[in-house]
C-alpha cells in the first residue's frame, strides 16, 4: 500500500458503548441462538454460534483492557486479564448454578452477566476509592471486563458442553478440566491484544483485530476439546470455522501492522570489513 503524500487516514474509533452492545449483546445472542437452535432441531452443530459470541465478548474485554491500561496500572497488562477471568469464572458458575436451583436453566447466562457486571463495578470502585487509582473509567472498564470474562467463559464452555444446564456444564467442562483451557485461551484473547500492541502508536482497530485473531484461536482449542464431548460433526464445524476465522483475521492484522509500521528500508548486506 502507499502512504506517500500524507498520513494514513486515522481509523474511526468505535465507542465503548457501541462495543459493549456488540460484544456483550452479541455474546448473549450467540449463546441463546445456539441453545435454542440446538434444542429445537435436536442437534449440537450450532454450538459454534456460542463460541463466536464468546469471541465478541472477548473483544469487548480487550477494548476495556486497552482503555484501563492506557492509564498505567503499574503491574503489567496480564494481571488485569487474569482478574477478568477470575471475576468471570465466579460470575459464570454462580449464574448457571443459581438458574438450575431456580429451575430456569435458560436464565443462567443473564444472571451470570448481571452478577459479573455488578461485581466488576464494585472492584472498580474499590480500586479507585481505596487504592486511590483515580482512573476515571475504572468502574466502567472493570464492569465491561468482568461481564466479558463471564460471557467468554460461558460461551466457550457451551461450545464444549452443548448445553446450558449446569449439571452438563459441570460434567463436561469442569470435571474434565477443559475449563482450564477455556480459562487460559480466554484470558489470552482478553489480555494479549493490548499487551502485544501497546505503545505510542497503539491503534484501536489493530488491537481489536488482534483480539478477534486470538479469540478465533481459542475457538479452535475449544473445538478440539469438544471432539470428546459433542458429535464429531459439531466439533469439526467449530474447528474449521475457528481456523478459517483465525486465518482471515491474521491476514487482516498483518495488513494493519504493515499500515502502522515504520518504513523498512533495505540497505543490503553489511560490507565484509564490518563483519
Amino acid at each position, binding site marked *: 500500500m502507499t502512504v506517500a503524500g500524507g498520513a494514513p487516514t486515522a481509523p474511526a474509533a468505535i465507542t465503548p458503548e457501541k462495543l459493549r452492545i456488540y460484544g456483550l449483546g452479541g455474546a448473549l445472542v450467540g449463546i441463546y441462538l445456539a441453545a435454542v437452535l440446538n434444542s429445537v432441531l435436536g442437534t449440537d452443530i450450532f454450538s459454534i454460534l456460542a463460541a463466536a459470541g464468546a469471541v465478541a465478548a472477548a473483544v469487548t474485554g480487550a477494548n476495556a483492557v486497552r482503555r484501563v491500561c492506557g492509564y498505567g*496500572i*503499574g*503491574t*503489567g497488562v*496480564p*494481571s*488485569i486479564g*487474569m*482478574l477478568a*477471568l*477470575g*471475576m*468471570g*469464572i*465466579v460470575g459464570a*458458575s*454462580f449464574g448457571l*448454578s*443459581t438458574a*438450575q*436451583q431456580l429451575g430456569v436453566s435458560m436464565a443462567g447466562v443473564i444472571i451470570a452477566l448481571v*452478577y459479573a457486571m455488578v*461485581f466488576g463495578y*464494585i*472492584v472498580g470502585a*474499590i*480500586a479507585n476509592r*481505596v*487504592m*486511590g*487509582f483515580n482512573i476515571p473509567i475504572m468502574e466502567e472498564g472493570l464492569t465491561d471486563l468482568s461481564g466479558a470474562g463471564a460471557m467468554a467463559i460461558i460461551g466457550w464452555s457451551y461450545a464444549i458442553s452443548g448445553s446450558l444446564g*449446569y*449439571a452438563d*456444564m*459441570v*460434567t463436561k467442562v*469442569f*470435571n474434565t*478440566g477443559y*475449563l*482450564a483451557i477455556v*480459562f487460559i485461551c480466554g484470558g489470552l484473547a482478553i489480555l494479549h491484544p493490548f499487551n502485544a500492541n501497546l505503545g505510542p502508536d497503539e491503534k484501536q482497530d489493530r488491537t481489536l483485530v488482534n483480539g478477534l485473531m486470538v479469540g478465533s484461536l481459542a475457538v479452535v482449542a475449544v473445538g478440539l476439546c469438544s471432539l470428546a464431548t459433542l458429535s464429531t460433526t459439531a466439533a469439526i464445524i467449530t474447528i474449521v470455522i475457528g481456523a478459517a476465522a483465525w486465518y482471515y483475521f491474521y491476514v487482516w492484522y498483518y495488513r494493519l501492522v504493515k499500515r502502522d509500521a515504520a518504513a523498512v528500508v533495505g540497505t543490503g548486506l553489511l560490507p565484509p570489513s564490518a563483519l
Partner: protein
Amino acid sequence: MNFDALTIVYILEIIVGGLLVGVGVHFVPVGGAPAAMAQATGIGTGTVQLAAGSGLTGLLAAGLMMSVTDNIWPILASGAVGAMIMIDATMMTGGWIYAYAVGAPFASAKVNYDPITGYSQPPYVAPGTVGQGIPTVCYVSGTIGAFMGGLGGALIYYPLMMTNHNPSLSALFAIGIFLVNAVLASWNIQGTIEGFHDPKFKRWPKAFRSCLVATLILALVAVTITGGA
C-alpha cells in the same frame, strides 16, 4: 440453600482465606522486568503470576490431602507447605542464576543493613540499580508470604469442597477468588516489592480493606454454588 451456622462459618473461612492471600502477596519479593535484568531485587516476574503459582501448588497439595482426610488442619498445613516449597524452589534457582550465570551479588538498595544478617548492603549494589538478586531477608519474607498464600488458598478450597463436594469445581472457583485477591493486592503494590522490609509494605492495610470487600461478595455467592447433578 439455607444459611445455617455452618454456612456462616464457611463464609468466614473464605473471607479469612482471601485476606491471607491479599496480605501474603505483599511478602513475596517480585521485581518484574527490572529483576529479570538484574537491576532490582526480587523474582523476575509479576506478582499475580507468582501468587497464582504458589497458590495453585498449595491448592494441589491441599486437594491431595483432602482426598485422604476431612480434617481441616492437615489440609491447611499441606496447602501452606506446598506453596512455601514452590516459592522457595523458585527463589533458590533464581538465586543460582543470579550468582552463577548473571554474576550479580545478592544486595538490596532499599536498606543499609540486611535486617537478618546485619551485613552492609550499599558496597555491593551496582551503580544505577536498586540491588540485585534475592538477599536473605527477601527469602525469609517470600517464605512467609507463600505460607500465608497457601494457607489462604487451602482455607478457600476447604469450605468450597464442603459445600459442593466437587474437587474440580472447588479448585477452579478457588483460583478465581485467589486471582481477584492477588490482583487487588498487586495493584496496591504497583509493581515491585522486596518483602516486609520494603517501604511499600506499609500500604498493606489498603489491600486488606479492598480484599475484605471483594472476598465478602465472592464468599456470599460461593457457598450457594452446588456441585451440579
